[in-house]
Protein backbone atom coordinates (compact mmCIF):
# COMPACT_ATOMS: atom_id res chain seq x y z
CA UNK A 1 0.00 0.00 0.00
CA UNK A 2 1.32 3.40 -0.88
CA UNK A 3 1.53 5.98 1.82
CA UNK A 4 3.73 8.41 -0.01
CA UNK A 5 2.74 11.87 1.08
CA UNK A 6 3.51 15.07 -0.66
CA UNK A 7 3.72 17.65 2.07
CA UNK A 8 3.37 20.53 -0.34
CA UNK A 9 0.02 19.48 -1.74
CA UNK A 10 -1.52 17.92 1.35
CA UNK A 11 -3.56 20.62 3.05
CA UNK A 12 -3.98 18.51 6.16
CA UNK A 13 -0.30 18.76 6.99
CA UNK A 14 -0.11 18.52 10.76
CA UNK A 15 1.49 21.03 13.03
CA UNK A 16 4.72 20.10 14.76
CA UNK A 17 4.58 17.31 17.29
CA UNK A 18 3.88 18.34 20.86
CA UNK A 19 5.36 17.21 24.15
CA UNK A 20 3.26 15.89 26.98
CA UNK A 21 3.78 16.12 30.71
CA UNK A 22 1.84 14.44 33.50
CA UNK A 23 2.48 15.33 37.12
CA UNK A 24 0.95 13.44 40.03
CA UNK A 25 -2.09 12.43 37.99
CA UNK A 26 -4.75 10.66 40.03
CA UNK A 27 -8.11 9.42 38.87
CA UNK A 28 -10.75 7.91 41.08
CA UNK A 29 -14.24 6.69 40.23
CA UNK A 30 -16.14 6.75 43.50
CA UNK A 31 -14.11 4.76 45.98
CA UNK A 32 -12.06 3.07 43.27
CA UNK A 33 -8.64 4.51 42.50
CA UNK A 34 -7.77 3.85 38.86
CA UNK A 35 -4.62 5.96 38.57
CA UNK A 36 -2.54 6.71 41.59
CA UNK A 37 -0.06 9.52 41.04
CA UNK A 38 1.32 9.07 37.53
CA UNK A 39 4.36 11.14 36.52
CA UNK A 40 5.35 10.97 32.87
CA UNK A 41 7.10 13.14 30.32
CA UNK A 42 6.78 12.35 26.62
CA UNK A 43 9.09 14.43 24.42
CA UNK A 44 7.61 15.68 21.16
CA UNK A 45 7.74 13.22 18.29
CA UNK A 46 8.23 10.16 20.46
CA UNK A 47 6.31 6.93 19.90
CA UNK A 48 5.37 5.80 23.39
CA UNK A 49 3.77 2.41 23.95
CA UNK A 50 1.92 1.81 27.21
CA UNK A 51 1.36 -1.83 28.14
CA UNK A 52 -0.52 -3.36 31.00
CA UNK A 53 -3.17 -5.88 31.87
CA UNK A 54 -6.88 -5.23 31.41
CA UNK A 55 -8.15 -2.80 34.00
CA UNK A 56 -4.74 -1.44 34.94
CA UNK A 57 -5.81 2.11 34.12
CA UNK A 58 -4.06 2.53 30.77
CA UNK A 59 -7.21 3.42 28.82
CA UNK A 60 -8.21 5.88 31.53
CA UNK A 61 -4.81 7.50 31.16
CA UNK A 62 -5.45 8.08 27.45
CA UNK A 63 -8.87 9.55 28.12
CA UNK A 64 -7.28 12.01 30.54
CA UNK A 65 -4.53 12.93 28.09
CA UNK A 66 -7.01 13.64 25.29
CA UNK A 67 -9.32 15.64 27.52
CA UNK A 68 -12.27 13.21 27.42
CA UNK A 69 -12.06 13.09 31.21
CA UNK A 70 -10.44 15.33 33.79
CA UNK A 71 -8.03 13.99 36.41
CA UNK A 72 -9.17 13.93 40.04
CA UNK A 73 -5.83 15.45 41.00
CA UNK A 74 -2.58 16.35 39.28
CA UNK A 75 -1.72 18.17 36.10
CA UNK A 76 -1.64 17.19 32.44
CA UNK A 77 -0.03 19.61 30.02
CA UNK A 78 0.60 19.59 26.29
CA UNK A 79 3.49 21.88 25.41
CA UNK A 80 3.13 23.31 28.90
CA UNK A 81 -0.57 24.15 28.58
CA UNK A 82 -3.29 22.10 30.27
CA UNK A 83 -6.16 23.82 28.42
CA UNK A 84 -7.37 22.76 24.97
CA UNK A 85 -5.99 19.25 25.15
CA UNK A 86 -8.90 17.90 23.14
CA UNK A 87 -7.88 19.97 20.13
CA UNK A 88 -4.19 19.08 20.17
CA UNK A 89 -4.48 15.42 21.07
CA UNK A 90 -6.74 13.09 19.10
CA UNK A 91 -7.80 9.66 20.18
CA UNK A 92 -8.36 6.58 18.08
CA UNK A 93 -10.77 4.35 19.97
CA UNK A 94 -10.88 0.59 20.29
CA UNK A 95 -13.91 0.65 18.00
CA UNK A 96 -13.89 2.57 14.70
CA UNK A 97 -16.94 4.59 15.81
CA UNK A 98 -17.90 5.59 12.28
CA UNK A 99 -21.25 7.25 11.70
CA UNK A 100 -23.18 4.57 9.79
CA UNK A 101 -25.34 7.21 8.06
CA UNK A 102 -22.42 9.16 6.62
CA UNK A 103 -20.35 8.13 3.60
CA UNK A 104 -16.71 7.30 4.22
CA UNK A 105 -15.43 10.73 3.15
CA UNK A 106 -18.03 12.52 5.28
CA UNK A 107 -16.97 10.39 8.23
CA UNK A 108 -13.37 11.49 7.78
CA UNK A 109 -14.53 15.10 7.48
CA UNK A 110 -15.96 14.82 11.02
CA UNK A 111 -12.31 15.08 12.09
CA UNK A 112 -12.23 18.70 10.96
CA UNK A 113 -14.95 19.68 13.39
CA UNK A 114 -18.40 21.22 12.98
CA UNK A 115 -17.28 24.55 11.54
CA UNK A 116 -15.18 23.29 8.65
CA UNK A 117 -16.03 24.48 5.15
CA UNK A 118 -17.84 21.57 3.51
CA UNK A 119 -15.99 21.56 0.21
CA UNK A 120 -12.56 21.98 1.73
CA UNK A 121 -13.36 19.34 4.34
CA UNK A 122 -14.19 16.79 1.65
CA UNK A 123 -11.02 17.56 -0.28
CA UNK A 124 -8.91 17.12 2.82
CA UNK A 125 -10.79 13.98 3.73
CA UNK A 126 -9.98 12.44 0.37
CA UNK A 127 -6.30 13.26 0.89
CA UNK A 128 -6.38 11.66 4.32
CA UNK A 129 -8.12 8.62 2.87
CA UNK A 130 -5.36 8.38 0.27
CA UNK A 131 -2.73 8.26 3.02
CA UNK A 132 -4.45 5.24 4.56
CA UNK A 133 -4.90 3.60 1.16
CA UNK A 134 -8.66 3.99 0.89
CA UNK A 135 -8.95 6.73 -1.72
CA UNK A 136 -11.25 4.57 -3.85
CA UNK A 137 -13.73 3.91 -1.03
CA UNK A 138 -14.57 7.56 -0.30
CA UNK A 139 -18.16 7.28 -1.53
CA UNK A 140 -19.08 4.03 0.23
CA UNK A 141 -21.25 3.45 3.27
CA UNK A 142 -19.19 2.30 6.29
CA UNK A 143 -21.31 -0.84 6.70
CA UNK A 144 -19.76 -2.55 3.69
CA UNK A 145 -16.15 -2.05 4.83
CA UNK A 146 -14.15 -4.73 6.63
CA UNK A 147 -13.00 -4.26 10.23
CA UNK A 148 -9.51 -3.25 9.17
CA UNK A 149 -10.83 -0.78 6.59
CA UNK A 150 -13.11 0.78 9.19
CA UNK A 151 -10.15 1.35 11.51
CA UNK A 152 -8.23 2.87 8.62
CA UNK A 153 -11.10 5.30 8.08
CA UNK A 154 -10.96 6.10 11.79
CA UNK A 155 -7.21 6.70 11.44
CA UNK A 156 -7.84 9.02 8.50
CA UNK A 157 -10.43 10.89 10.58
CA UNK A 158 -7.86 11.41 13.33
CA UNK A 159 -5.15 12.42 10.83
CA UNK A 160 -7.27 14.94 8.95
CA UNK A 161 -7.51 17.01 12.11
CA UNK A 162 -3.69 17.35 12.08
CA UNK A 163 -3.15 16.13 15.63
CA UNK A 164 0.04 17.05 17.44
CA UNK A 165 -0.45 14.05 19.67
CA UNK A 166 -2.22 10.92 18.49
CA UNK A 167 -3.48 8.61 21.22
CA UNK A 168 -4.29 5.06 20.13
CA UNK A 169 -6.47 3.10 22.53
CA UNK A 170 -5.91 -0.50 21.40
CA UNK A 171 -7.37 0.33 18.01
CA UNK A 172 -6.09 -2.91 16.48
CA UNK A 173 -7.27 -5.24 19.22
CA UNK A 174 -10.26 -6.58 17.30
CA UNK A 175 -8.46 -7.23 14.02
CA UNK A 176 -7.20 -10.55 12.71
CA UNK A 177 -3.44 -11.16 12.95
CA UNK A 178 -2.53 -10.27 9.35
CA UNK A 179 -4.66 -7.13 9.19
CA UNK A 180 -3.18 -6.18 12.51
CA UNK A 181 0.38 -6.34 11.24
CA UNK A 182 -0.60 -4.34 8.14
CA UNK A 183 -2.22 -1.71 10.33
CA UNK A 184 0.83 -1.55 12.61
CA UNK A 185 2.98 -0.84 9.56
CA UNK A 186 0.55 1.80 8.39
CA UNK A 187 0.50 3.51 11.78
CA UNK A 188 4.29 3.48 11.85
CA UNK A 189 4.58 4.92 8.34
CA UNK A 190 2.03 7.63 9.03
CA UNK A 191 3.81 8.51 12.26
CA UNK A 192 7.18 8.67 10.48
CA UNK A 193 5.89 10.92 7.69
CA UNK A 194 3.57 13.16 9.74
CA UNK A 195 5.76 13.54 12.78
CA UNK A 196 3.21 13.69 15.58
CA UNK A 197 3.76 12.34 19.07
CA UNK A 198 2.15 8.91 19.32
CA UNK A 199 0.88 7.22 22.46
CA UNK A 200 -0.26 3.65 21.94
CA UNK A 201 -2.07 1.73 24.62
CA UNK A 202 -2.03 -2.02 24.12
CA UNK A 203 -1.94 -5.29 25.99
CA UNK A 204 -0.05 -6.89 23.11
CA UNK A 205 3.66 -6.79 23.97
CA UNK A 206 4.70 -7.68 20.40
CA UNK A 207 2.77 -4.69 19.09
CA UNK A 208 4.37 -2.43 21.69
CA UNK A 209 7.87 -3.63 20.79
CA UNK A 210 7.14 -3.34 17.06
CA UNK A 211 6.12 0.30 17.34
CA UNK A 212 7.38 1.98 20.49
CA UNK A 213 10.50 4.14 20.93
CA UNK A 214 9.83 3.57 24.58
CA UNK A 215 7.62 1.26 26.57
CA UNK A 216 5.95 2.13 29.85
CA UNK A 217 4.43 -0.66 31.92
CA UNK A 218 1.42 0.26 34.04
CA UNK A 219 0.11 -1.86 36.86
CA UNK A 220 -2.47 -1.09 39.52
CA UNK A 221 -2.67 2.57 38.62
CA UNK A 222 1.05 3.31 38.56
CA UNK A 223 4.08 3.09 36.28
CA UNK A 224 6.17 0.05 37.19
CA UNK A 225 8.69 0.14 34.34
CA UNK A 226 9.90 2.70 31.80
CA UNK A 227 12.17 1.28 29.13
CA UNK A 228 13.68 2.73 25.94
CA UNK A 229 13.51 0.45 22.89
CA UNK A 230 16.43 1.12 20.61
CA UNK A 231 15.76 -1.41 17.86
CA UNK A 232 16.22 0.01 14.36
CA UNK A 233 13.19 0.55 12.17
CA UNK A 234 11.60 -1.16 10.35
CA UNK A 235 11.66 -3.77 13.07
CA UNK A 236 11.70 -7.43 12.22
CA UNK A 237 9.51 -9.50 14.46
CA UNK A 238 11.50 -12.69 13.96
CA UNK A 239 14.90 -11.25 14.89
CA UNK A 240 16.71 -12.34 18.08
CA UNK A 241 16.98 -8.73 19.36
CA UNK A 242 13.22 -8.27 18.98
CA UNK A 243 12.54 -11.49 20.87
CA UNK A 244 14.94 -10.50 23.63
CA UNK A 245 13.26 -7.13 24.19
CA UNK A 246 9.83 -8.74 24.06
CA UNK A 247 10.93 -11.29 26.64
CA UNK A 248 12.15 -8.53 28.94
CA UNK A 249 8.86 -6.61 28.78
CA UNK A 250 6.84 -9.77 29.39
CA UNK A 251 9.05 -10.41 32.41
CA UNK A 252 8.14 -6.99 33.80
CA UNK A 253 4.44 -7.58 33.21
CA UNK A 254 4.45 -11.00 34.83
CA UNK A 255 6.56 -9.83 37.76
CA UNK A 256 4.22 -6.94 38.45
CA UNK A 257 1.28 -9.31 38.59
CA UNK A 258 2.38 -10.89 41.85
Amino acid sequence: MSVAMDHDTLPSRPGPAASLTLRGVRKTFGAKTVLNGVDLHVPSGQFLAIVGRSGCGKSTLLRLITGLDEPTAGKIAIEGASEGRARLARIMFQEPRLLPWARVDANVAIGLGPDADRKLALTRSRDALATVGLADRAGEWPSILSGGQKQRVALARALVSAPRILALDEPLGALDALTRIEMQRLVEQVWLSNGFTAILVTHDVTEAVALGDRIVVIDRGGITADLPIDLVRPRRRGSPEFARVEEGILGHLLASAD
Partner: protein
Amino acid sequence: MVAWQACASLGWIADTFMPSPYAVAAAAWRLTLSGELPQNLVVSALRALGGLVVGGGIGLALGLLNGLSRLSFSVTDTSVQMIRNVPHLALIPLVIVWFGIDEGAKLFIVALGVFFPIYLNTLHGVRSVDAQLIEMAGSYGFRGWPLFRRVIWPGALPSILVGLRFALGVMWLTLIFAETIAAQSGIGYMAMQAREFMQTDVIVLSILLYALLGKGADSLVKVLERWQLAWRPALQGPQ
Protein backbone atom coordinates in the same frame (compact mmCIF):
# COMPACT_ATOMS: atom_id res chain seq x y z
CA MET B 1 -61.82 -10.90 -7.74
CA VAL B 2 -63.13 -13.05 -10.61
CA ALA B 3 -64.69 -15.47 -8.13
CA TRP B 4 -66.27 -12.58 -6.29
CA GLN B 5 -67.74 -11.18 -9.51
CA ALA B 6 -68.92 -14.64 -10.61
CA CYS B 7 -70.66 -15.33 -7.28
CA ALA B 8 -72.45 -12.01 -7.48
CA SER B 9 -73.42 -12.36 -11.17
CA LEU B 10 -74.77 -15.87 -10.69
CA GLY B 11 -76.90 -14.60 -7.83
CA TRP B 12 -75.23 -16.79 -5.21
CA ILE B 13 -74.66 -13.76 -3.04
CA ALA B 14 -77.41 -11.23 -2.68
CA ASP B 15 -76.56 -7.70 -3.83
CA THR B 16 -77.77 -6.28 -0.53
CA PHE B 17 -75.38 -8.60 1.32
CA MET B 18 -72.28 -8.13 -0.80
CA PRO B 19 -72.30 -6.16 -4.05
CA SER B 20 -70.30 -7.32 -7.06
CA PRO B 21 -67.00 -5.62 -7.91
CA TYR B 22 -68.72 -4.18 -10.95
CA ALA B 23 -71.39 -2.61 -8.75
CA VAL B 24 -68.73 -1.12 -6.49
CA ALA B 25 -66.92 0.32 -9.50
CA ALA B 26 -70.20 1.69 -10.80
CA ALA B 27 -70.91 3.30 -7.44
CA ALA B 28 -67.46 4.86 -7.50
CA TRP B 29 -68.09 6.26 -10.96
CA ARG B 30 -71.56 7.54 -10.02
CA LEU B 31 -70.31 9.28 -6.87
CA THR B 32 -67.33 10.72 -8.71
CA LEU B 33 -69.61 12.25 -11.32
CA SER B 34 -71.86 13.72 -8.66
CA GLY B 35 -68.80 15.19 -6.96
CA GLU B 36 -69.68 13.52 -3.69
CA LEU B 37 -66.76 11.11 -3.68
CA PRO B 38 -63.93 13.56 -4.49
CA GLN B 39 -65.32 16.01 -1.97
CA ASN B 40 -65.55 13.47 0.85
CA LEU B 41 -62.17 12.08 -0.07
CA VAL B 42 -60.55 15.50 0.17
CA VAL B 43 -62.29 16.23 3.47
CA SER B 44 -61.11 12.94 5.01
CA ALA B 45 -57.57 13.30 3.69
CA LEU B 46 -57.31 16.85 5.04
CA ARG B 47 -58.56 15.75 8.45
CA ALA B 48 -56.05 12.91 8.53
CA LEU B 49 -53.21 15.14 7.43
CA GLY B 50 -54.17 17.92 9.85
CA GLY B 51 -54.33 15.54 12.79
CA LEU B 52 -51.04 13.98 11.78
CA VAL B 53 -49.26 17.31 11.47
CA VAL B 54 -50.57 18.64 14.79
CA GLY B 55 -50.31 15.43 16.87
CA GLY B 56 -47.18 14.17 15.15
CA GLY B 57 -45.50 17.55 15.41
CA ILE B 58 -46.15 17.80 19.12
CA GLY B 59 -45.14 14.16 19.64
CA LEU B 60 -41.91 14.65 17.73
CA ALA B 61 -41.03 17.86 19.57
CA LEU B 62 -41.78 16.44 23.00
CA GLY B 63 -40.04 13.16 22.19
CA LEU B 64 -36.89 15.00 21.13
CA LEU B 65 -37.04 17.30 24.14
CA ASN B 66 -37.55 14.47 26.61
CA GLY B 67 -34.86 12.39 24.95
CA LEU B 68 -32.34 15.21 25.26
CA SER B 69 -33.32 16.78 28.57
CA ARG B 70 -33.53 14.84 31.80
CA LEU B 71 -35.42 17.67 33.45
CA SER B 72 -38.12 17.82 30.81
CA PHE B 73 -38.40 14.02 30.87
CA SER B 74 -38.91 13.82 34.62
CA VAL B 75 -41.50 16.60 34.55
CA THR B 76 -43.66 15.39 31.65
CA ASP B 77 -43.12 11.72 30.92
CA THR B 78 -45.18 10.29 33.78
CA SER B 79 -48.21 12.38 32.81
CA VAL B 80 -47.84 11.39 29.16
CA GLN B 81 -47.65 7.71 30.08
CA MET B 82 -50.78 8.06 32.19
CA ILE B 83 -52.79 9.61 29.39
CA ARG B 84 -51.44 7.00 26.99
CA ASN B 85 -53.11 4.24 28.96
CA VAL B 86 -56.53 5.72 28.27
CA PRO B 87 -57.83 4.42 24.93
CA HIS B 88 -58.12 7.65 22.99
CA LEU B 89 -61.33 6.52 21.26
CA ALA B 90 -62.95 6.40 24.72
CA LEU B 91 -62.59 10.17 24.76
CA ILE B 92 -64.90 10.67 21.78
CA PRO B 93 -68.02 11.40 23.87
CA LEU B 94 -66.10 13.96 25.89
CA VAL B 95 -64.57 15.46 22.78
CA ILE B 96 -68.01 15.83 21.22
CA VAL B 97 -69.16 17.70 24.31
CA TRP B 98 -66.12 19.98 24.08
CA PHE B 99 -65.96 20.61 20.37
CA GLY B 100 -69.39 19.58 19.06
CA ILE B 101 -69.16 17.56 15.86
CA ASP B 102 -67.25 20.11 13.81
CA GLU B 103 -63.68 19.83 12.56
CA GLY B 104 -62.07 20.57 15.92
CA ALA B 105 -63.32 17.29 17.36
CA LYS B 106 -61.93 15.14 14.56
CA LEU B 107 -58.63 17.01 14.49
CA PHE B 108 -58.25 16.64 18.25
CA ILE B 109 -58.99 12.96 18.38
CA VAL B 110 -56.73 12.12 15.42
CA ALA B 111 -53.94 14.30 16.79
CA LEU B 112 -54.22 12.57 20.16
CA GLY B 113 -54.11 9.16 18.48
CA VAL B 114 -50.97 9.83 16.42
CA PHE B 115 -49.19 11.67 19.22
CA PHE B 116 -48.31 8.59 21.26
CA PRO B 117 -46.63 6.34 18.71
CA ILE B 118 -44.57 9.26 17.44
CA TYR B 119 -43.69 10.46 20.93
CA LEU B 120 -42.69 7.03 22.21
CA ASN B 121 -40.62 6.09 19.17
CA THR B 122 -38.90 9.46 18.98
CA LEU B 123 -38.00 9.25 22.67
CA HIS B 124 -36.75 5.70 22.25
CA GLY B 125 -34.81 6.68 19.12
CA VAL B 126 -33.01 9.58 20.78
CA ARG B 127 -32.27 7.50 23.86
CA SER B 128 -30.79 4.65 21.89
CA VAL B 129 -28.31 6.69 19.85
CA ASP B 130 -24.91 5.07 20.41
CA ALA B 131 -23.20 6.91 23.28
CA GLN B 132 -19.82 6.02 21.78
CA LEU B 133 -20.66 7.96 18.63
CA ILE B 134 -21.74 10.95 20.69
CA GLU B 135 -18.46 10.80 22.59
CA MET B 136 -16.49 10.47 19.36
CA ALA B 137 -18.21 13.50 17.81
CA GLY B 138 -17.76 15.40 21.06
CA SER B 139 -14.03 14.75 20.93
CA TYR B 140 -13.97 16.57 17.57
CA GLY B 141 -15.83 19.55 18.97
CA PHE B 142 -19.42 18.63 18.01
CA ARG B 143 -21.84 20.06 20.55
CA GLY B 144 -25.35 21.48 20.48
CA TRP B 145 -26.96 21.83 17.05
CA PRO B 146 -24.11 20.30 14.95
CA LEU B 147 -24.11 17.26 17.26
CA PHE B 148 -27.87 16.96 16.95
CA ARG B 149 -27.87 17.32 13.17
CA ARG B 150 -24.97 15.00 12.42
CA VAL B 151 -25.36 12.32 15.11
CA ILE B 152 -28.54 12.38 17.20
CA TRP B 153 -31.15 13.05 14.50
CA PRO B 154 -29.86 10.50 11.96
CA GLY B 155 -29.38 8.02 14.78
CA ALA B 156 -32.95 8.44 15.99
CA LEU B 157 -34.53 8.59 12.54
CA PRO B 158 -35.08 4.84 11.98
CA SER B 159 -37.11 4.68 15.19
CA ILE B 160 -38.97 7.91 14.38
CA LEU B 161 -40.02 6.48 11.01
CA VAL B 162 -41.27 3.31 12.70
CA GLY B 163 -43.34 5.61 14.92
CA LEU B 164 -44.65 7.40 11.86
CA ARG B 165 -45.83 4.14 10.30
CA PHE B 166 -47.61 3.16 13.49
CA ALA B 167 -49.09 6.64 13.67
CA LEU B 168 -50.50 6.37 10.14
CA GLY B 169 -52.34 3.20 11.09
CA VAL B 170 -53.78 4.85 14.18
CA MET B 171 -54.61 7.94 12.13
CA TRP B 172 -56.92 6.12 9.67
CA LEU B 173 -58.47 3.98 12.38
CA THR B 174 -59.28 7.00 14.52
CA LEU B 175 -60.59 8.96 11.59
CA ILE B 176 -62.95 6.21 10.42
CA PHE B 177 -64.29 5.91 13.93
CA ALA B 178 -64.74 9.62 14.44
CA GLU B 179 -66.34 10.05 11.02
CA THR B 180 -68.86 7.27 11.51
CA ILE B 181 -69.91 8.63 14.89
CA ALA B 182 -69.81 12.35 14.52
CA ALA B 183 -69.45 13.86 11.09
CA GLN B 184 -71.38 15.43 8.27
CA SER B 185 -68.81 14.77 5.60
CA GLY B 186 -65.93 12.46 4.87
CA ILE B 187 -65.70 8.85 3.78
CA GLY B 188 -66.86 7.50 7.13
CA TYR B 189 -69.93 9.70 6.95
CA MET B 190 -70.54 8.52 3.38
CA ALA B 191 -70.49 4.91 4.59
CA MET B 192 -72.89 5.62 7.44
CA GLN B 193 -75.28 7.42 5.08
CA ALA B 194 -75.15 4.44 2.74
CA ARG B 195 -76.04 2.16 5.61
CA GLU B 196 -79.25 4.11 6.16
CA PHE B 197 -80.29 3.35 2.57
CA MET B 198 -78.80 -0.17 2.44
CA GLN B 199 -76.36 0.91 -0.30
CA THR B 200 -73.87 -1.89 0.29
CA ASP B 201 -71.94 -0.91 -2.84
CA VAL B 202 -71.10 2.45 -1.30
CA ILE B 203 -70.19 0.85 2.03
CA VAL B 204 -67.79 -1.55 0.34
CA LEU B 205 -66.42 1.32 -1.71
CA SER B 206 -65.70 3.26 1.50
CA ILE B 207 -63.89 0.31 3.01
CA LEU B 208 -61.82 -0.10 -0.15
CA LEU B 209 -60.98 3.60 -0.10
CA TYR B 210 -59.74 3.37 3.46
CA ALA B 211 -57.61 0.40 2.51
CA LEU B 212 -56.18 2.30 -0.46
CA LEU B 213 -55.52 5.45 1.56
CA GLY B 214 -53.85 3.43 4.31
CA LYS B 215 -51.71 1.55 1.85
CA GLY B 216 -50.82 4.77 0.03
CA ALA B 217 -49.69 6.49 3.23
CA ASP B 218 -47.62 3.48 4.22
CA SER B 219 -45.95 3.39 0.82
CA LEU B 220 -45.03 7.05 1.18
CA VAL B 221 -43.22 6.31 4.43
CA LYS B 222 -41.48 3.38 2.77
CA VAL B 223 -40.19 5.72 0.07
CA LEU B 224 -39.08 8.10 2.82
CA GLU B 225 -37.24 5.25 4.55
CA ARG B 226 -35.53 4.17 1.36
CA TRP B 227 -34.33 7.69 0.81
CA GLN B 228 -33.35 8.64 4.36
CA LEU B 229 -32.10 5.28 5.60
CA ALA B 230 -30.15 4.27 2.50
CA TRP B 231 -27.14 3.68 4.74
CA ARG B 232 -28.73 0.69 6.44
CA PRO B 233 -27.27 -2.59 5.23
CA ALA B 234 -30.78 -4.04 4.80
CA LEU B 235 -31.65 -1.32 2.29
CA GLN B 236 -28.53 -1.68 0.20
CA GLY B 237 -28.65 -3.75 -2.92
CA PRO B 238 -26.03 -6.40 -3.61
CA GLN B 239 -22.68 -4.75 -4.21
